[in-house]
């Protein structure tokens, strides 16, 4: 897919909370000593005063600061998440208000499991590309949900990134093309009244993550006429590091190409924020002229794949905290009990 006018990223910003829990602490609570080591060593945890809205505002402020665009030009704000603080009430209006871009703005929350953030990116490209708005803000942010003791609890992390899209003439990275690939695949879901999501165990792999990620990636590569070797970087949704390694290998991407955008080993899977954080980590170091391959995955299920080309403007817009800064800024919580308190998993009334 391509918009009527060329669109790109004006600015971007990431956010990862400071706190981490060691997955060994989770394992000690739930598993026998002989259990295999968890897929990641630690994962990010929100502080007591953090939620998707505060985190989205943090990331968006960095994006706006880097973009240097007039606030009046921002015509849309979308927050893609599956852990919105209010079941009914938009998070996007709080974010838009905090950024000072209300009231003449389109605002809503997007929901598509882990690809809600890239869904917002697709919409932003379309809004700007059609000329309806000058700039549109797409955010993917999560304080990822998982049932205590479930396999997901060992990886479900917190964080995300914000992308402000504008006309390509002002962009640090131009969107060359994008596609979406969706099917009705119930690999992970949470029913209306359920407290935690359920997942299909091994069904989440081959018929879900890999099928959609590979299909969307191959379709985009065919559409733009590039091969894996034409990209300097490749970013994927990262439920666990080995999923990325396998998908990348199938598509012909080397470790050299995906390692910069693979943030999960240090913070876990930030669900709707996961692939967007990976992209931000790549933009932190990408050089003008380089191509970036991007493919999200969201359960339910689908993938959005994007092809970006980095422009000369990237060097002058780099300021503020990088993804690496956030990953290095860490404090480990004191065991599983403190983690349960911070995640609100202990019912007190």
């Amino acid at each position, binding site marked *: 897919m391509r918009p009527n006018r060329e669109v790109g990223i004006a600015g971007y910003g990431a956010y990862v909370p400071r706190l981490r829990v060691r997955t060994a602490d989770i394992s000690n609570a739930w598993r*026998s000593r*002989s*259990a*295999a080591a968890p897929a990641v060593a630690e994962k990010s945890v929100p502080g007591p005063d953090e939620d998707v809205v505060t985190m989205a505002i943090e990331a968006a402020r960095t994006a706006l600061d880097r973009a240097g665009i007039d606030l009046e030009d921002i015509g849309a704000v979308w927050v893609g998440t599956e852990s919105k603080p209010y079941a009914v009430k938009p998070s996007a209006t709080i974010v838009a208000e905090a950024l000072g871009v209300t009231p003449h703005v389109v605002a809503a929350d997007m929901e598509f499991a882990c690809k809600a953030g890239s869904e917002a990116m697709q919409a932003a490209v379309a809004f700007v590309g059609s000329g309806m708005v000058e700039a549109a803000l797409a955010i993917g942010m999560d304080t990822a949900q998982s049932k205590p003791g479930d396999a997901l609890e060992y990886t479900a992390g917190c964080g995300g990134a914000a992308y402000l899209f504008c006309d390509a003439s002002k962009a640090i990275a131009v969107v060359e093309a994008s596609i979406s690939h969706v099917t009705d695949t119930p690999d992970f879901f949470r029913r209306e009244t359920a407290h935690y999501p359920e*997942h*299909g*165990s*091994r*069904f989440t792999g*081959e*018929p879900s993550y890999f099928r959609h990620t590979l299909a969307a990636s191959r379709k985009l590569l065919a559409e733009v006429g590039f091969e894996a070797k034409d990209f300097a970087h490749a970013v994927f949704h990262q439920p666990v590091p080995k999923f990325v390694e396998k998908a990348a290998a199938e598509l012909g991407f080397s470790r050299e190409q995906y390692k910069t955008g693979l943030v999960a080993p240090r913070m876990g899977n930030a669900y709707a924020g996961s692939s967007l954080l990976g992209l931000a980590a790549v933009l932190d170091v990408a050089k003008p002229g380089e191509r970036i391959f991007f493919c999200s995955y969201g359960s339910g299920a689908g993938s959005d794949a994007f092809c970006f080309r980095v422009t000369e403007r990237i060097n002058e817009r780099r300021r503020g905290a990088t993804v690496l800064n956030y990953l290095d800024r860490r404090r480990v919580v004191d065991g599983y009990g403190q983690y349960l308190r911070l995640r609100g998993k202990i019912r007190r009334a």
Partner: protein
Amino acid sequence: MNDVFIIGAGQTPVAEHWDRGLRELGATAIRKAMADAGVETVDALFVGNMLGGAVNGQENLGALLADAADLLPAEAWKVEAACASGGAAVRAAAMSVAAGIHQVVVAIGIEKMTDAVGDKIAAGLATASDGDYEASHGLSFVALSALMMRRYMHEMSASREDFAPFAVNAHKNAALNANAMFREPISAETFARSPLVAAPIGVLDAAPVCDGAAAVVICSREFLRGHHRPVRIAAAAGATDTIGLAGRPDLLTLGVAKVSAEKAYAASGFGPKDIDFFEAHDAFTIITAMSLEACGFAPRGEALKRAAHGCFSAGGCIPVSTFGGLKARGHPVGASGTYQIVEATTQLRGEAGPNQVPGARVALTQSIGGHGSIAVAHILEA
């Protein structure tokens, strides 16, 4: 009693069949078996299945599969004997032909386990144990086997690692079987390192959760034609024991394995020494060891020592799990007993390719359910 023959065998690969349900798996195995036998219609269909109701929300598998395989309006119904359901379906089908009621029938074992995950599968499998005194107290299938294995290790002064040869042999044989789930050989070291599921049982002691269907066409002597390559069901026998482990006088004698094998030996005139290979119910390595001792292939407490000497591997005194067994071909529970019969038929026809037991003429298959509370044994002759 009339003589009974197997004239057709068919199977789906054992796998996680995400895109195929009971209908598709069942119809595929039945049509393959019928094509192998060269028959267009059958008089009846016997369906071995354990979890259709508990996991798939589907009972009445007789009608479901007769319809799916285009066998309407043939008589058809389900036979349930926990993990021995596949063996029991073949037994029921053979009895109907032996009694002269039917001339040609199909027996199928089928299971679709991957529609449910984790707790739901464990709970479904636990319905084979004693609901009042085991399952409702949280004893899972693995936990019950762990109790047996712990006791065996204590009584026989065995270590966990001593059980490795069974899993290593199963994986080695499965590697050559295109229908097997696990086609990677493993080493004794890998076995020893495998994470514990319920101590002392590790991941590599246990058969996997999976999907599959296997079917055989069974007929009378009158029905045989020149183009058939019949394998005779020389004898078959079933047995039961207390449903709960606590009721057994000796935890280390697998009574149902002993009784069903001895009855089949007596009825066929064959003894353990006449058996060329044994398709054992190797759902857990401890069950393999106890089955071998119960069926007369090792004295009590000697199965592990004989296994260490390669007695149960290809070329050994009595090869076991020649296509990978439940452990590595896979254990779609209610289908496993029928997979054993399909595989034994393939061996006795001399069509087992790289898995062929040279000169195989007589085979023992044994399908066990509910921790040794029920079993069906078959002796097949080329």
